[in-house]
């Protein structure tokens, strides 16, 4: 072995077999288990969240007929004589503003993503992308504050007499749209950028203009990703609390006029949970609403990620 000093030669006595006996492999084993425990943390808390929300919602369904909960159009849990626990106003409120928000955010978001990934020059891109990340980082309470103080006044001036309440569904929808934009833009942009260059080059070589290539080749190829972006934007908007709470006026009415106040599920929970007596029917009813919200977000997210995994499969095959 030449003149090289025999490092670690004493280990050779231990041989090559039975690593389970050595201290080293015990340390490795313990480290792996510790890391696994950290990974399990998320699982434990997801289970706890579900368990406790369900646990606190069950008494409500024992006290109030579930049919009444799902079909009643009145939410008046604080009435001393005739409390009513109808889910419909807040469920409708959430969907109404979320759908309006997406109607604004999806076209703007997808077109912006198309512009950033396919048209923009490098300089424009390097300005746009970080600014959109900053938009994503603004706290929701700041958005809510802006909607309450500035946007609502602008809408009142704009629509004049037509405005039923100063804080209304449209106000909430616009601010939600702005908040959902970064999600929609960044995920759409990722999937547009992931479209193989060869597709575009083939189309360009056949004499399509860049615009035709973008519309006929790139956008259809990126469709699953864009769909995911829209679904995740939906999930973000329906789960948003502070901005909705501050922007929409929170009247539990089944309103179909966008210029009238509504109460969203998240706002209902945030507003009522602070003033309710623990253990009352009203207290449990809030958990019933939370459970519905939980199930909706979970479904949306599940559908969105199953579309994502399809998209990723497509990327790997490429």
């Amino acid at each position, binding site marked *: 072995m030449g003149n090289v000093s025999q490092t670690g030669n004493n280990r050779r006595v231990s041989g090559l077999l039975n690593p389970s006996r050595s201290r*080293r492999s015990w340390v490795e084993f313990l480290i*792996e288990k510790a*890391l*696994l425990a*950290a*990974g*399990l*943390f*998320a*699982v434990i808390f*997801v289970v*706890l*969240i579900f368990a*406790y*929300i369900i646990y*606190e919602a069950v008494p409500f369904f024992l006290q109030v007929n579930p049919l009444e909960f799902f079909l009643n159009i009145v939410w008046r849990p604080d009435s001393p004589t005739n409390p009513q626990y109808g889910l419909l106003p807040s469920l409708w409120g959430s969907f109404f503003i979320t759908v309006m928000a997406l109607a604004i955010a999806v*076209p*703007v978001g997808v077109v*912006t993503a198309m*512009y950033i990934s396919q048209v*923009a020059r490098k300089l424009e891109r390097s300005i746009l992308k*970080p*600014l959109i*990340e*900053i*938009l994503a*980082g*603004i706290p*929701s*309470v*700041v958005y*809510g*504050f*802006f909607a*309450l*103080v*500035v946007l609502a006044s602008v809408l009142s001036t704009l629509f004049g007499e037509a405005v039923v309440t100063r804080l209304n569904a449209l106000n909430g929808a616009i601010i939600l749209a*702005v908040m959902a*934009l970064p999600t929609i*833009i960044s995920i759409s942009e990722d999937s547009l950028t992931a479209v193989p260059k060869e597709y575009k080059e083939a189309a360009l070589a056949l004499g399509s*203009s*860049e*615009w*035709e290539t973008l519309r006929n080749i790139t956008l259809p190829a990126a469709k699953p990703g864009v769909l995911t972006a829209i679904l995740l934007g939906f999930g973000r908007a329906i*789960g*948003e*609390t*502070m901005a909705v*709470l*501050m922007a929409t006026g929170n009247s539990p009415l089944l309103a179909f006029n966008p210029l009238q106040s509504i109460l969203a599920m*998240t706002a209902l*929970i*945030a507003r009522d*949970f*602070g003033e309710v007596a623990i253990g009352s029917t009203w207290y449990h009813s809030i*958990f019933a609403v939370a459970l519905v*919200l*939980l199930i909706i*977000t979970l479904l949306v*997210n599940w559908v969105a990620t199953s579309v994502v995994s399809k998209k990723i499969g497509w990327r790997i095959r490429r």
Partner: protein
Amino acid sequence: MISKYSKQKLYFWVMRVVAAIPLIFLGWIVGTIIFYAIPALKPSLLGAPTPGSYDSYGIGPAILGSIYVMVFTIIFSLPIGVLAAIYLVEYAKDNLFTKIIRMAINTLASLPSIIYGVFGFVFFLIILRFPKSAVVAALTLSLLTLPVIISASQEALLSVPKSYREAALAVGATKWQTIRDHVLPNAISGIMTGGILGLSRAGGETAPILFVYAVGLSGFVFSPLAPSMALPFTIYNLTLQSTGLEYTLPIAFAACLILLALITSLNILAIYIRNKARRRLEAVRSS
């Protein structure tokens, strides 16, 4: 042919205008807040609030409270998040068990923030009988920041070239030695990005701490085991809950500006570190 390309030019201009909409909103929101907040900025703002009078109303306790919450959140969630990311990237086998862990992390990332508020109240205050405090706020917010930290750390660990791992293993390093000596040091800036993003997320959230920490009015609270004010909650409290908007609004604007400056500078720092790390890695890859 000419018409085809002039049409394209028109479309591209329309797209450019649409792409400007997010920026217009960003400018509008930030601009308005700066414009109205500047006149309200005075030294007394950093003091304690004065009940009944808004002339020298301070939000100092709210700033302190937010910093407390952010620091404790990161103390709780950064170690667990990084360890979980190491497990998922380096150890986890491709089986149902791993799938469940990933699903749970995705779920945590997508739940509405108010759900955490309700859960935090029930679990930490009612079941575990913890006091309403910065520590409980941080525990609740940790559930939100955990997925942020895990996904940033995972990206960072995955970006360390496989060849480093092989080189260390080939000289007889154990798996953990390889991770400790070669993977983590090269992933550190990505992990820091995750930590900073988690920090800014924790500082900006309101809904999760509505019921477990924040109060409308308090003096400086130095104990992490007592309730106090927090910046985002104070903004909410001074607007929607306010009875005299004409007095509270300037203070709310100032609070908005302070919060925005804090969160945005953290985010810019995170973006900067991440982009620098990505560039460095591309340089290593191409060499």
